[in-house]
């Protein structure tokens, strides 16, 4: 750090005394961040390099095959994932956003049942995903007799991402300043009119960003599906919500579990597809946030 330059802040004044130690500390901090990012970079490079020979159209045109890894595709997994995500969006997003509106706009925080809901949501957000798999297996697949179907998978994943949707939607709603609500109420709008016409439009970008991130979590999830019988080889696309299915991450898992080298290449190629979908969704989320985020 240049000592002779005009000190602009207290920071530079302070660091005069022990420059070397200060400098080393700063370098150590930067190195830590760099190591974390290096892992990400290595992972991406490795997966693309490993999967490169199989990144062809057979990957999304062909169904998976145990016997011919060199021409096997992941079509049923791609379609299964799309079905699950579509249904999850239909179920988890409305429920989560409505719950968030309740908690932010209506709930009286001193009431015991509202405290219970709050506690519940923060706890559920940290329950391991494999435990949601047990919920899906024990309650949804067996007790409700939904079986090992697309519907069971979608309901299970909806419950898994619900806390994430609620938490992010609440943050977006909370960011709308109270003066907007007060202005609307003062003009004679009812509470619901205020929420529907003022609060929600103002918080939609934040809600959309959080929802996309929650859905991208759902796309990458594999553990719950292991419990829901989606691990077996499925060679057809789902025909409806009561059809059996598999998802892309689980197909990748079953490829990894096989000893032949061709399956490792196939797994890497499928991972590239999975990461491409996720990267696209994340970019949209970040773009939404930067484009529409309002500062009050």
């Amino acid at each position, binding site marked *: 750090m240049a000592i002779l330059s005009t000190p602009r802040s207290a920071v530079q004044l302070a660091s005069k005394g022990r420059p070397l130690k200060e400098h080393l500390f700063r370098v150590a901090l930067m190195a830590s961040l760099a190591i*974390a990012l290096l892992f990400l970079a290595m992972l991406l490079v*490795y997966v693309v390099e490993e999967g490169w020979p199989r990144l062809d159209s057979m990957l999304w045109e062909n169904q998976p095959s145990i016997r011919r890894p060199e021409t096997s595709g992941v079509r049923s997994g791609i379609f299964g994932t799309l079905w699950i995500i579509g249904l999850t969006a239909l179920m988890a997003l409305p429920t989560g956003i409505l719950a968030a509106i309740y908690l932010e706009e209506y709930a009286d925080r001193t009431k015991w049942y509202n405290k219970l*809901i709050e506690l519940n949501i923060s706890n559920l957000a940290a329950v391991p*995903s*494999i435990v949601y798999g047990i919920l899906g297996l024990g309650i949804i697949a067996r007790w409700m007799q939904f079986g090992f179907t697309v519907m069971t998978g979608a309901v299970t994943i909806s419950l898994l991402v619900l806390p994430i949707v609620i938490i992010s939607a609440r943050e977006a709603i909370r960011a709308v300043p109270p003066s907007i609500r007060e202005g609307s109420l003062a003009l004679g709008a009812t509470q619901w009119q205020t929420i529907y016409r003022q609060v929600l439009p103002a918080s939609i970008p934040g809600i959309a960003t959080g929802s996309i991130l929650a859905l991208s979590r759902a796309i990458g999830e594999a*553990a719950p599906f292991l419990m829901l019988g989606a691990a077996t080889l499925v060679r057809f696309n789902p025909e409806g919500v009561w059809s059996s299915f598999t998802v892309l991450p689980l197909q990748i898992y079953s490829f990894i579990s096989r000893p032949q080298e061709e399956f490792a290449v196939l797994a890497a190629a499928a991972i590239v597809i999975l990461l491409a979908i996720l990267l696209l969704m994340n970019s949209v989320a970040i773009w939404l946030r930067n484009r529409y985020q309002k500062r009050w």
Partner: protein
Amino acid sequence: MSAQPRTTVPGAPASLARSRPRYGESIIKVILLAAAMVSVATTIGIVIALLEPTIEFFGSVSFGEFFGSTDWGPLFNPPAFGVWPLIVATVEITLIAVLVAVPLGLASAIYLSEYASHRTRKIFKPVLEVLAGVPTVVFGFFALTFVTPLMKDLFPFLELDGKNALAAGLLVGVMIIPIVASLSEDAMAAVPNGLREGSYALGASKMLTSVRVVVPAAFSGIVAAVILAISRAAGETMIVAIAGGFKSVFTLYPGDEMSTMAAFIAQAGSGDASVGSIAYKTIFAVGSLLFVITFAMNYLSARMVQKYREVYD
């Protein structure tokens, strides 16, 4: 703003009072409350799904055998139900993950919060979020096919198994770095500038201010972040199932293949046990144990925040 009637202010014109009840508004509130109750129903569902088979399990296997033995093999003949190998493997992999994630995550958080310029922070925080969004099967694949062979080449004296706790723990650690970094950074960003300025005014350097003022002030948030990361690591399934393996032999050496609680659930749940059998019920018993452990850690995390939170205005 709730639907309760307001106390009338003396002298206020009566015409301001509501003329008729608004049923639509009340119906909407009920619908919203119902949506919020789904989360409560989920918890009840999880508890029911776990409890019944777990009680049946302990009807045929004694508590003493489950918690008092180190022989595990519910899928073997004759079966053995001593859960310690799973617990040891879970603790060991979690410990490796924490040793990786806490220093790296905390240092990244201090850098982003205290040292980085606004622009740098704006670039690197989303990148860390991308790291958080990488599916765990991908980490597992990377651990199994890249990290393990690499470590075998570099450190042959470790005598690593093809699947081992070390590589799995390492990648679980990488997976939880964003949780530690992001939540700790939030906690540090919430420390008011007055504290930093006070510290500088007393002659402290930037490093001293970060380590002795900002980190202690944000301590409750940092601890909560670490506990949350630990519970995520303990429940992580795909990385350990792929790179850690399923062998449930009682071992402490991290170079060995070992099965965590979550990995066992994944293995037995994906079709190795027939419904209603004792092996099938074991899934739920182990699931209950995992649920109780993560639940206790979340509770601890919430309490830490409540108890040690420094409130600044």
